[in-house]
């Protein structure tokens, strides 16, 4: 399981880059279709939940809780 960013919802506030203790996200450089610089999930293997299977209890969800737009989903 690793975080993904929904480009339909993301407004490019980069709060996930700030709060993630494992630096999974990096600041994006390309404009999205809605006109925001969305962050990129660069190092998804660094995420605490990376080795979990789907349906297991998520260990760390600080990015999910902080994201004001509900753009982060774990898949």
């Amino acid at each position, binding site marked *: 399981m690793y975080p993904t960013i929904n480009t339909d*919802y993301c407004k490019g*506030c*980069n*709060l996930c*880059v*700030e709060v993630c203790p494992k630096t999974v996200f990096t600041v994006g450089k390309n404009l999205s279709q809605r006109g925001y610089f969305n962050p990129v999930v660069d190092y998804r293997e660094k995420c605490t939940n990376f080795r979990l299977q789907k349906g297991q209890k998520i260990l760390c969800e600080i990015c999910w809780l902080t994201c*004001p737009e509900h753009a982060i989903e774990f898949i």
Partner: protein
Amino acid sequence: MEFFDFYRKDRWPHQFCPGCGLGTVMNSLYKAFSDLNMDLKNTVFVSGIGCTGRVPGYINGDSVHTTHGRPIAFATGIKLARPDLNVVVISGDGDLFAIGGNHIIHAARRNVDIKVIAVNNATYGLTGGQLAPTTPHNMITTTSPYGNKEHPFALSELVAAAGANYVARWTTAHPNQLVNSIKTALTTPGFTFVEVISQCPVNFGRRNKMGDPVYHLRWIKDHSIPLSKVTFDMKSPFDFMDIDFKGIYTIGEFVKRDRAPYGKTIETENNILRPPKE
């Protein structure tokens, strides 16, 4: 409960500014509700006017959008008319404390069984960033271009002194603690109050060199200290509320009391209030 069972998917993405702390509060509220397995059909969300007053409009349940400053008065009426409902008030600092300051003091004194979540962004965000009673000392707003020369309202300390059953203050930089606090507030009978220090990068941060929401969140995190770490030379946390560029917000759970709520104290046989037998 899935996220979009709690919130309306057709209203998403919401209309708050990029980086607004209200989204974090909405996530925490959903998380607390789904962890407690509470039913949306037994819950009424009451809000006033302001950015935070728009949050119940996104919730897939019953909500009341009331006049400016009077959500507590409406919530008291709802609770007394239908004691079986959970009443949750979500509103901002300008609505609850600037316009409706007396309502919340007396609701806390009566200990009405309502749960209040106050989102404190330290300014009037919706109308363009004017000076609010909660603006920290020496901060710049549109109506105080030389810095705020007043001292801010200490919301949690005020409600704790007024006699609420549960009072806590957290920030958007501490979402896990905020979830636990909202859970405690929703399950405690009586007047419970959770204050959330939130970022407002567009109307408050932009005028104080914190226009990026990341900088504002970092500022909030650096300027908050847990109640357990407040040392003796800082005197009491009540003296420590003069927040300016050097000052700090005290965060934590302030009060846990076990008083009987207002609805229980007036409940008698056949719902008719009688004088006590001698």
